């Protein structure tokens, strides 16, 4: 929601020239260790508190998800999934086991953001050099193209002001050397923040630990289809991310969106200008078909 210094903006929506490149800063990442999360929602509270937003009181839809969905005033929501998972070690009597998986949902801060690619308004979506993807509300025109472009179904348009909202990864805090509010509040240390490199290093120790405890498929969720993400998960079942409230196993910008905001753009503009120029030269070459006054 807030902009770091313009020097920190490395990519800008609907802009055909390069953004500032002179200052390089290390890529950051938030690491959410799903195996250490107890679903207390302290992170949700901290998010609402720091960003000073309150979703309206809703209704219970039969799950612990509260609110039921992400929203303009709810940038992160704990998703609770009860799933039966096949046991990795076969020496146990039961073949499957019931697991309660809790995933903190929100913007994944893709390295190749579908929202930014789709956005038609210059500078309404930016990516900072550290990788954070941010919505600059004053430039948002409310078209909803970011919703169309996002592979994770994250942006939400407010009915009140027609602006798009999502997690900013607390870019205002990160910009002054603080960790995001959710990280600060987590009582079990399930949410970590630092350079992406450090987060991978820490995650690998967690994965190792989980594997020792029988989760043979444990791993880090950092999907390459979107160039990696600046919000990563440690998953007990990294082979089946869908278990975690439909987390896509291979997210990428839809080919339709790539077509639309990729090759089609210059092609269409070129066709229009081409047709006009061709008409002009046709007239100059062939000349007009003159009107015969006499019958």
């Amino acid at each position, binding site marked *: 929601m807030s902009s770091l210094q313009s020097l920190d903006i490395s990519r800008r929506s*609907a*802009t*055909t020239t390069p953004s500032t490149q002179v200052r390089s800063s290390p890529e950051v990442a938030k690491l959410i260790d799903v195996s250490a999360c107890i679903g207390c929602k302290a992170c949700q509270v901290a998010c609402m508190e720091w960003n000073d937003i309150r979703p309206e009181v809703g209704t219970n839809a039969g799950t612990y998800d509260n609110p039921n969905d992400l929203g303009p005033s709810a940038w992160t929501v704990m998703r609770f999934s009860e799933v039966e998972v096949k046991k990795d070690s076969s020496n146990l009597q039961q073949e499957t086991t019931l697991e309660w998986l809790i995933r903190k949902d929100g913007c994944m801060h893709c390295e190749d953001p579908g929202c930014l690619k789709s956005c*038609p*308004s*210059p500078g309404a979506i930016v990516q900072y050099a550290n990788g954070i993807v941010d919505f600059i509300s004053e*430039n948002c*025109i*409310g*078209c*909803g*193209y970011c*919703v*169309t472009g996002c592979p994770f*179904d994250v942006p939400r*348009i407010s009915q009140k002001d*027609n602006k798009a909202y999502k997690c900013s990864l607390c870019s205002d805090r990160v910009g002054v050397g603080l960790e995001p509010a959710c990280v600060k509040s987590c009582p079990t240390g399930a949410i970590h923040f630092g350079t992406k490199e450090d987060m991978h290093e820490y995650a690998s120790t967690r994965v190792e630990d989980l594997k020792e405890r029988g989760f043979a498929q444990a791993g880090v969720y950092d999907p390459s289809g979107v160039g990696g993400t600046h919000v990563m998960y440690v998953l007990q079942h990294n082979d089946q991310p869908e278990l975690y409230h439909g987390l896509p196993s291979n997210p990428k910008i*839809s080919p*339709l*969106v790539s*077509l*639309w905001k990729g090759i*089609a*753009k*210059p092609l*269409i*503009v070129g*066709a*229009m200008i081409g*047709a*006009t120029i061709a*008409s002009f030269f*046709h*007239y100059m070459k*062939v*000349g*007009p*078909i*003159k*009107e*015969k*006054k*006499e*019958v």
Partner: protein
Amino acid sequence: MNTNTLDTSKDLVRYKDLTRMNHWAIVLLFFGAGLSGLAFLHPSLFFFTNLFGGGPWTRILHPYMGLLMALCFVGMYVELWRDNLLIKVDIEWLKKTHEMFAGNKDNMPEVGKYNAGQKLVFWMMTGSLLILVITGVLFWQAWFADFPVILRRIGVVLHATSATVLILAVITHIYAAIWVKGTTRAMTEGLVSRGWAKANHPLWYREVVAKEETMK
């Protein structure tokens, strides 16, 4: 009045007043919807939003201008679709399109109220407007925000594609009117000269003259 010029009473009525006013309403709405839409297609054209009061206003106005244009076009469609059905002579005409482009008008087969090129433009406009309205609804955020994202994605691609078809059809349409002299009068005054009619639409000309004879 110069005695050499044709007596205006000898001119033929090509379009009625209501048809012409509807046509010009479509023209204005086409430029409104077209320029505002192009602003969202390519960053190099985003400056068109300045014509409509900025980004949010352009986003608000675009669908209404587009919808209104399509509604006006319905009137035109009802009036003209029969005259634009493709018939045998149109195939002949299309086979000789290169002659037309070369300006060898006399080698073209005789056509009625519309030639095959005009008919194609008509159907391109009809088809593209229909697709534009249907797909536009799929991502009209203010009113229809709840379509599944896959429909929105298909919608934006088809919307951009059919908008291109429409714009190319309009460029052809405008150019033809400038190229073939005596044509624009049909839309500004509703009249064309007999010479124009005989040269460009001989079958229609004979039809109209035959009607005149029976009226006498």
